[in-house]
Structure formats: C-alpha cells, structure tokens
C-alpha cells in the first residue's frame, strides 16, 4: 500500500467554506504564484512547467509545458482556452475546482497566458454547472477589481482579459477542437487534427492552448513552490498529485487528491482514507480506471499504480481520473448498455461510423436486454466495434475524427469478452464469437509484470 502524505496541491481549499472568496484565497497564499511567475521571463515559466513534468489532467495526459511549446513562433494573437466542460461519466473534480477554488484556476490561467503570450483567455465552463459559473463570475469580477486581471497587471506590461463562457449541454465539447467550435458559436463538432491542431490553428484559426481546469490549477503551486518540489512527488512519468473521483460500489465514494504514479488502484479502492473497500464487503467485479471511454480493469489489476504509462501499457487509460467500481452483483450487460447509450446520445453526428455505429450498438444492446437478442448479436456487436475502431487494438485505430465513436467500443469489448456468460444468459444460450479483439485489456485476466513485482 502506498498511501502517501503528499501535500494537497489543488484541493487544499476544498474543505474551507469560504475558499472561493478572494479574501480567503489571498489569505492562503493566493496570487503569489502569479507574482513569482511575473518575476521570471515567460520562457522561464515555460521551462519551469516543463521541468515539473505536469501532465495534462483532461484525459489525454500530454505534458502541459510541451503542449505550450507547439505554438508556431511569430503568429499572434494566441489564445488560452480553459476546458471546464467536465462531462466524462464518472468524472468529478473540475466542478469542485471551479466551485470551491475559482481564484486558483484564474491564477493558473494568468500564469499560462503570461508564459505562452496569450492576449485573451476564455474560460469555458460546462453549461449545467450554474454554481461554478456564479463562483467564477464573482471571482473574475473581484480579481479584476483587485488588479489581478486586465490591463498592465501589477503595473507590468502583462495584460490579458479572461472571458467567462459557458456551454449548453454537449459531452463532445469536452474534446478540444469541438470546444473551440462551440466557443466560435458553432455546433460542437470536432475538427480534424491535422490540420487543426489548436496550438497551430485553434480559436479563430489562431494558435490556441486548450488546457484542462485541473492542469491549470496546479500552476500557482508550481510557481510558488518550484518545479523541483512538484517533480519530487509521484513516479517517473507521472509527477505531482492528481485528483481521482472514486464512485460506485465503494464504502466511501469521494474525490481524493493522491500522489500521482505511486498510489495504486488497491489503495484508492480499499484504503480507509480513500474508498474504504467494496460496499457490504462484497467482491470487486471490475472497475473503470479513467472514465467511461476507458477499457475496464478487473481485480487482478488492483496493484497497478496510478501511473499514466503503466496503465496505458495495459491497454486502457487513466483518462480523466474517474474510477467507477462495480461489485459482484452488478449487471454488466446493463452497465455496458448504459455506457453505450451515453455515447450514442452524445455523438455529434459528424463522422459516419460514430453517428450510425453508436446508435446501432445501442439498439442491439437494448434488444438483448429486452430479451430479443439473437446468438449472432454478440459477434455482430464486436464486428460493428471493429468497423468503428479497425482491429480493436490499443491505442485505437479509429475511423473517426475524434475518439468518441471508438470510446463506445470500450465497454462492449470489456463486457462481452469478460462477462460473455451474462450476455448469453440474456440471449438464452451460448453465442459464438469470431471477431478477434487484440487490445490487452479486452482479453480478460491479465497480470502486468510490473504490477506483480510491486505487489
């Protein structure tokens, strides 16, 4: 077990009733990170963030400092867009960061704008999060009044406006190019990368950095305490701390900031300070390691550390830090259907395989649950998945612009391959499967070597 005493970097004000106010924020060290940043050159700040090895916390897990460096030189204006459209099922952290500590996020945005040379920032909050919108609006108004944002911040040449913007209900807008489309007033339909890598051709086709809320919330601490202190926490490829939401069948569902890369799934699910074990002391059946899009893991994976690369090698991902726990009594066919229904409802409709494929999958699963399944439906399900994500391997070979369509194949492959008997029970008899599924997490029991060694 590796429950460490790492400091809380981003969630330190979660327990304060007034952590969202500017007074409390400033009284607890707020805006000192920005001042520390302004004492450095912008490139110095970039270097600092690079050496902190801060991985993006949105899902893809790309190093933030490196992403900043992708803006083509000499092309201005640059924009910074905050992705606060948290909607991946199981994910619950950015909302808390926005509701409970909005100034920390604002300070992170300012540091990012200073470092990258962004002249305007847009803070895109999910539409359904009314309280977060209110808290951020208040925080922005207070921060403008106090001189933290706007023209010539603290008397320096650094000037930037932060504009609060919110969405209107579309999961796909969490994808960065769809978010940009939405921010431009359009339907949130993703753009193809390349050519539309936001760092090169983003908002209004200008260089744009899209960062997740949690990613930016780390910046004040890194600036105040130094990259070395941050990089001292965590494992080789996963530095600092990270917030995980543990939901489902644990005794203590909750949002926990843990040391990244070191803590294991077993810690997160069973440690008394975290999940506290499976409810009613039942057996663990499976868990989703990183949001609805991630292929599932099983009890044999409990000792895998919460480390991005290690989990990636398993054939799944830490994604958005959303761990959903299924106990032994969970109906995996219904769970699978519910997840697929989600992707079918949230498909933007742009790419044929996702638009047509996800709802086809949903209809078949619905039919199976209604008792109208045919033995050949399991093979059909997997072959449709294979047509959405050819080869069904990991990382996926997707036929679509963004990963949403392919995400719908994760729960199907995970559930059908591991819990085929439950499907057969719905079908009323055995079903033959001929479609080959290649990704490691899709093929049932699997013990990772490193994980074994750690245990």
């Amino acid at each position, binding site marked *: 077990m590796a429950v460490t005493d790492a400091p809380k970097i981003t969630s330190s004000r979660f327990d304060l009733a007034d952590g969202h106010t500017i007074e409390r924020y400033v009284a607890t060290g707020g805006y000192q990170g920005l001042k520390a940043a302004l004492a450095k050159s912008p490139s110095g700040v970039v270097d600092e963030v690079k050496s902190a090895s801060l991985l993006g916390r949105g899902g893809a897990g790309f190093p933030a400092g490196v992403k900043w460096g992708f803006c083509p030189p000499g092309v201005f204006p640059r924009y910074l867009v905050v992705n606060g459209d948290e909607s991946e099922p199981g994910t619950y952290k950015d909302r808390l960061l926005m509701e409970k500590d909005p100034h920390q996020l604002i300070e992170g945005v300012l540091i990012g704008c200073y470092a990258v040379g962004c002249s305007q920032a847009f803070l895109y909050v999910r539409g359904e999060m009314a309280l977060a919108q209110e808290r951020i609006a208040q925080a922005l108004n207070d921060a403008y009044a106090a001189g933290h944002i706007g023209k010539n911040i603290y008397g320096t040449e650094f000037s930037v406006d932060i504009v609060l913007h919110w969405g209107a209900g*579309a999961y796909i807008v969490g994808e960065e190019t769809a978010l940009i489309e939405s921010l431009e007033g359009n*339907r949130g339909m993703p753009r*193809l990368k390349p*050519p539309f890598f936001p760092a090169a051709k983003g908002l209004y086709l200008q260089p744009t950095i899209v960062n997740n809320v949690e990613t930016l919330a780390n910046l004040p601490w890194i600036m105040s305490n130094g990259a070395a202190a941050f990089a001292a926490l965590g494992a080789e490829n996963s530095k600092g701390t990270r917030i995980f939401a543990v939901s489902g069948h644990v005794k203590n569902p909750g949002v926990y900031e843990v040391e990244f890369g070191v803590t294991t799934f077993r810690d997160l699910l069973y440690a008394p300070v975290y999940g506290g074990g499976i409810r009613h002391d039942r057996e663990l059946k499976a868990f989703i390691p990183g949001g609805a899009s991630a292929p599932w893991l099983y009890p044999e994976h409990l000792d895998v550390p919460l480390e991005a690369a290690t989990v990636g090698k398993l054939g799944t991902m830490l994604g958005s830090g959303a761990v959903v726990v299924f106990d032994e009594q969970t109906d995996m066919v219904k769970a699978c259907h519910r997840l697929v229904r989600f992707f*079918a*409802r*949230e*498909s*933007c*409709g*742009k*790419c*044929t*395989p996702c*638009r*047509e*494929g*996800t*709802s*086809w999958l949903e*209809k*078949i699963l619905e*039919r199976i649950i209604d008792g109208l399944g045919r033995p050949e439906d399991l093979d*059909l399900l997997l072959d*449709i998945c*294979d*047509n*959405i994500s*050819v*080869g069904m391997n990991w990382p996926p*070979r*997707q*036929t*679509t*612009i963004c990963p949403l369509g392919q995400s719908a194949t994760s729960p199907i492959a995970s559930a059908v391959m591991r819990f085929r008997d439950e499907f057969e029970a719905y079908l009323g008899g055995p079903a033959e499967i001929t479609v080959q599924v290649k990704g490691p997490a899709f093929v049932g029991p699997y013990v990772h070597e490193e994980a074994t060694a750690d245990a």
Partner: protein
Amino acid sequence: MPEAPAETAVAITVNGKAIAARPGELVIDAAERNGVYIPRFCYHHRMEPVGMCRMCLVEVDTGRGMALQPSCMLTVAPDMVVETESPVAKKAQDGILEFLLINHPLDCPVCDKGGECPLQDHTVAFGPGESRFVEEKRHYEKPISISENVYLDRERCILCDRCTRFAKDVAGDTLIHFQDRGNGTQINTFPDHPFASYFSGNTVQICPVGALTAKPYRFKARPWDLDVVESTCTDCAVGCRIVIDGSRNEVLRYAGVDSDPVNWSWLCDKGRFGFEKVGADARLSAPLVKETNGDLVETRWADALTQAARAIKAGLDKNGPGGTAIIGGAHLTNESAYAWAKLAKGVIGTDNVDAQLGDGLPAAMVAGMARATIDEACVAGGTLLVIGSDPKDELAVLFLRIRDAVTLHKTTVVELSPRATSLSEIAAHSLRSVPGAVHELVNQIIAGEGDLAPVRAALANDHLTVLLGRGSMAESAEATVAAAAALLAAFPNVKFLSGLRRANVHGALDLGLTPGFLPGRVTLDDGRAWFTEAWDTVPAEPGLDAAGILAAAADGRIDTLILLGADPLADFPDRELATRGLKGARTVIAVETLLNSSSAFAHIVLPAAGAAEVDGTTTNIEGRVSTVRQKVTPPGTARPDWMIAAELAFRLGADLNITDAASAWAEIERLSAAHAGMTAEALGNEPDGLIVGRTEPDVERPAMVSFSAPAFEAPAVDAYSLRLVTTRRLYDQGTLVSHSPSLAGLAVSGSLLANPTDLDRLGVAPSGNVKVSSPRGAITAAVEPDATVPPGTVVLAWNQGDPSPNALIDAAAPVTEVRLETTS
C-alpha cells in the same frame, strides 16, 4: 491535365505504384489523377474538404507507421506511402458503406437519383449483399419542400455537408444547416425561411444521394433513358458550360459542367431551370402576319418571307438602305449574328443595326478595351473594381467566382454603385456614387486624398480589373465611359471585364450587330476595304443605335424595323420613345421564339429556333467562344436565325453563302480580325472555349478598335428632385422567366425604395402609394423607406412589371430626376 513538372513533383507511393503528385495536392486527387479512384461522398473538389463521411479512409504511412487517414484532408508529403485497398483500409471502407446504408431507405426504384447515385454505385460495386441491420430505420416526413424548386428527403440524406457547405461557403446563403445532433442530425431550413438562394439547384447536382431533388425534374426520367449533349447556357453572358439532358426530343434538365475558367460546375437557378422555356406551349411554331383587323394569324414561311422581303425592298427603293433598321440580336448564336450582320450591312447596306437596346455600353468601349478573363479578374491578391453592375442579379455565377476569390484568395473588391449591392458585404470598399456621376467619384479615388487614400492604394495593384456594367437604366452610359477612360489613364495596366448581361451580346457586338462596326471588332472605316472585297458592299456611314433608330422610326424615317429577339417596350429604357418608334415604323418584322410586349406592333412574325435547338457558338463576357449544341428540334416550323437571314437575302437577290452553322463559322474565322485562328477544329479541342482577340491576326486583316472616350460633364444635382436608380433582379418579368413555370413565381414586383430622411423632408408618407413623376412621365408606386438608399436617390427595380421605371426615363437625358407626391 498536364503532369506536374518533375522538379516540383512530390513523390509518393500509392498501392505500390510511384506517383508524381503536385505540391499541396490532396491524396484523393493525386490518386485519382493516377488512376486510383478512392470512394468518397463528402469530398467535392470545388469546396473545402471536411472529412466527415470517412468513406475515403486509406492507410497512410508518413514515417510513423500506417494510420487510417481520410485522403480528402491529407496533403501529399514526400515519400508518403498510401494503401487504398489494404485489408485495414478495405475493412474501414466496407464498414462505412454499411453504416451509411443502415438508415438509408430502400427506395432506389422510385428515387430520381437511382442510376446516377454514388451511394448506389458503391453499394453495387462493394457493398454487402444483405443488411445486418434488423432495427427500425430513421424516419422523417418525406420529402419536404425547402425552396421553390428543391425537395429534401431527410431519410435518404447521408449528412455529407455538401449542400450546406455549398450554401454557406460558395453561395453565401446559409439558409440550410445541420440541425439537432448525433443520429438525429438533419439538414433543414429555419422555420418559414426557405432556401431562397439563386443557386439552390446546385445542391441537387452535388447531392451524392437522392436527398435533394429538383421539382422540375422529379419523376420525369431515369438516367439511363437520358441522352446528353454538352453545351453552353445562354440565359446570360457568363457562358456557363452545361450538359443538356433530354429524352425523346424533350429537354428535361440542365446540369453544370466543371469548366475550370468559367463556372466550376455551378449554375444559377435561372439558368438551370430556365430550360422549361425550350418546350413552352407558347413557343412560336409558325410565321404570323397581321391581318387588316390587327390580328396576327399563321401563315406559310414562303408568304411571310416574301412579305418581309417586299417590305425591305420597298424601303430600299424609297429611302435607301438607311430605311431598314435592326434592333436586337443578342440572343443569337455567333453564326446567326454574323448572318444577320452580313444581311444588314453587306446585302441591304444599312448600318442602323444595334444588338443593344440602349441598356448597354458603347460597342467602341466594349470592343476596344483591354479585356480580362474571369480568372484574371479573380486572381489571388488582385483587385477587382466593380462599376455599375450587381453580378449576383445580372451575372449570377460570376458572383460565385468573385465571392470565392474574396473569401479564399484575398482578392480585393472595390465597389462603386449608386446603392448597396450583393457585393457590398464582401467588398473591401463599397462606395456610393451619385447617379450619373460615377466618373467624378473615380477621379476622386484616383486623386486619393483623405479617406480615399486606401481605396486608391487598393486600385494600385498590378492585377487591377474593372468589371464594367450598366447597372441603372435611369442614367446614360456616359459617366461609366468617362470613368473607364479615367481609370485607363491612371492605371495603364488595367483590364476590363464586361458586365453586359444579355446572352450573346458580346458575340453580337464582335460580329458587327452594332452601328459603326463590322465583324471582328473593326470600325466601318478600318474594315471597309477588307469587307467590301468579301461582301461586295458595306455601309457608307456609321448608322444609328437603338435610341437613334427608335427616334428615326418615330419621325417616319424607318420603313422596316426588324426586331431580332428584342422587346423594346420592356427593355429600352425610354418606353415613351419605344412606343412612338414601334408605331412610326412602316413595317415591323419580329424574329422571335416567343411573343412579347412589342410583338403587338409587328406586321410579320418569324418563328426562330432557340436555345437547345441550334448548333453554333456563343461568346461570353470574357470574349470566350464556346459551343452550343442542338438537343431537340425547334417547335413546328421555327428555324435558326441564320437560316431566316439567308432566306431573306435570297429573296432580296443575294446569297449569304451560309448553309449551316459550320459554314458561317468558317467565314467568321476567315474574315474576322478578332476570330482569326479560332477554327472549328481548335474549338473542338478546347471545350472550355477560346477567347476572341487573343490570337495575333495575320497582317492583312483590319486592325481592331482601341478604346477612347469623349469628355463628359455630369449635370448638377437638383436639390429639389431625387435621382432615379434602377436595379436588376435575377428573376424579372422577362420573357424567359415568364415562360419557365418553375421560375415564374420567383419574380416579385418592386416598391419604390427611398431614404426615410428624404421622405420626411419631402413630406411623403412612408407607406402606401406615391406618384413618381419625371419630365418624361409619371407612375404610381408603393413606397418603402430604406435607410440603405443614399439620400437624394430613389430606387426602382427594372422589368418587374408595372409600375415600370421606363415610363419615367428619357433616353436622351443623362440622368432621371423625379419628384414624389403622396397620392390621396
């Protein structure tokens, strides 16, 4: 298309074969040019790719291993390896075809697209034999009408974004759009805002399935029953290349051909759906002569021609050649125009011939100015100065080309017009000129002081083209001519693109259907010796233009007035003069496809063959000569115009030596300075056509005219009056639109638009009817306040029926001043 030169080629490998791609080329295009067709639905090479149907997925290795990529969004890069038929690529493509089909209805047997449907073709070629989809398909009400001429069947739609991209990016009419989301995504209009685009028919043509169908073609034919000829649309002077689809001697539809220098496959709806006039019930099918009771009754050709020849001969005997005059000819083919010019100038000997109806520009200018092509006018980074023309309403597809140049290629548009036009929104500078004084504004811009400095800077471009038209009929062409002269003096490299709109007006001018000119853009004097040798005779003196002819006719000095597909009452700016002229001519001979308002004055009506009924050539605004082809036989005994000219010549004792269109063209090529070298063979080799006057004529031919302009002083503004401006709309009350049922409903009668401050100042009520009076006449019109109309002017649409502004205009006056009074 030529191969890319080796030094600039990008070497890629497609399916194991080395290919020399062009720099910047998309993989899908490079592969297709080299014989590898990658299936696609959303990609259309005249629009920005969106990569959303995913049908063109291929495996591509750019150095980091094979990955699935849409070939329509991928630019070639050196050493790229592309597999279009590998197992992974095929799996992806087959999967996508299945996905597209699961919700696609199985109504191919009753679908207009069946037989020419990419989805059907791909399915037959590659698709699964039967469907694995046992669920209920998506359902929508089918079909719904989204515009006057287009139906949308959302069940068939595969959401490729072609129609919506066309509407937004090409036409700029974002009236159809994706709505809803995911599996429920649909194309639709906003409630009660139909897809009222001049270009809506293009969406039918580019729809890769039968989701969009054209009402005029609905259930008319199956593609395999159609036979096809390639031709040129002659509904305006852009000269869009088309295919005419027909069956059993009936024209069923037009479709745009992708002519790179001209229309890029686009057509306007007036052109596309105007084919209905070809077989209109009202078409003239037999000659008519006026009886003593005033009725026009059918007769035999021999009688009609004899009467016509007798009238001409009587005039000749009595008053000499000048007693015969011709107005019109802009709707003829080049060959027919030449035949009539030869008849008039070489047989009868009259120079009183004008293909324009006082609504165009002087032939000396059009023929003499340095002419630009559409490509040159739309060149990336160039400047296009637009004077007196609203291309969207007058030369619709040219508007699409200009819009593309501005939105995608940084072409700068400067617009000078008496009121805002369709270009104002995309123009870098849109300036209002005082009616009748545009040259003054041009001179100020050339001086370039103050606010006008950036405008002058925009014109000081190596690639400056002036689109020169005749926007308003309420002012003479003199100010426009003066403006052109000033521009030529200030910017010697300037080129001009003609904005004249009527069908083959440029061909008619080039071939001498205009006073003072002989075929080949040569003046009477310069061409006299050459054509005297060829024709035996040419007129001694420059003759009268349309205004002069009508005035002379009104004075009883015209014995025979021939209307060659012309309607002076509707089209000549001065209706009062037109009426007197038509009444004053002793004999009026109308050569027409359809009766028009002026036909009531005709004594003899000769039925002519029209579009899709004749072979020949036509000349567009650039001077581009392209072929027109016969698809159907003319109604009844109607015959080509050149044949009518030849028959009349015969009855006047002469032989035009024209036996068909080819013989006419051979003579044009042989005699015309401007058409030298444009042999039938050369034209046959170049479907996009050849440009008049661009080949160096051999030395003995007469010199082509060059442009010079007389000085012009605009009349002072009369503070008590308002200056009238007339505007054109694509759909008017003209003969063409009126006889095409699918278009007839689209013409709307116009109100008098006036600036609210002027109405206030004059104490005119801002609604209801006003009496509009000029020195020439008065009309009553509904008034509509419009703040975009510059103070001091009022605007009335041209040829939208009554009230018609031509009742107010004096052809001899440089501007039309009007006064308004509220009618009680």
